[in-house]
């Protein structure tokens, strides 16, 4: 199932890419395409930040997500102001958008960690008889 989901995501990304390339060639960069490209650039910036946080800090899980939440929200707000996503009155929406993503990521991560620990511990038990 995991492989099917991963393949679906790859196929989806390729489909979006092909549609975008054709659209850009035919009609140029529309507002929708610009928005998706902006989201891609923002995702890259956030992923880069995540990489450095994971590589150079060893915070506990909750601490790590708290730092990521603050950093990602700051990145979204800054990016949003630069590309004109937010008005001065609704910039706080960034906290909600990022919050939803972070909470989901936290629960998925916590589940994966628990499963990995169980797998490793059962491997140790098997190995030691």
């Amino acid at each position: 199932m995991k492989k099917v989901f991963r393949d679906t995501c790859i196929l989806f990304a390729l489909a979006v890419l092909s549609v975008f390339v054709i659209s850009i060639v035919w009609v140029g960069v529309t507002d929708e395409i610009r928005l998706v490209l902006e989201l891609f650039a923002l995702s890259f910036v956030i992923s880069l930040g995540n990489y450095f946080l994971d590589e150079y800090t060893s915070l506990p899980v909750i601490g790590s997500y708290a730092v990521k939440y603050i950093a990602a929200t700051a990145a979204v707000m800054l990016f949003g102001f630069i590309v004109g996503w937010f008005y001065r009155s609704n910039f706080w929406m960034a906290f909600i958008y990022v919050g939803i993503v972070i909470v989901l990521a936290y629960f998925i991560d916590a589940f994966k960690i628990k499963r990995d620990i169980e797998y490793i511990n059962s491997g140790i038990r098997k190995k030691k008889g």
Partner: protein
Amino acid sequence: MRIEKRQVEGQPLTVIIEYPEWNDSVESLVRKIGRMDISFVGKTEEGSVSIGISDVYYIENVERKLFIYTEGDVYRFDGSMSDIESRIEDTALVRISRTCIMNTDHLKEIRQIRNSHLEAVMDNDEKLIVSRKYLPDIKRIFRNEGL
């Protein structure tokens, strides 16, 4: 596969592999056995000691100096983490944080402790902090051993 063992006194440990045809499984077996023979030169105040990979519990980088920990001793190692990492491929040693490499053969348990940190408990009850990032690498070692 047939496994034969016999004691031959006065001889070093010798492994003879007989195969009908050289294939990937044989190659992997030869590589794994070869990796068991890896040793590190540890330094103490008295001099240098050869430490077999199976005796290593963990290797830690403390203030840019590497230390090899066995069940009850600590040795200084002249080299870098990347030197060690290049030699431990296909062995039970795996990186568990930016500063530590652990031997999973001496791992007793992995657990999540109260503040959500991960902790590895070794056979000698020493505890090491495990970075979440490296958990899949530890898992891969046990998956490969299960094959």
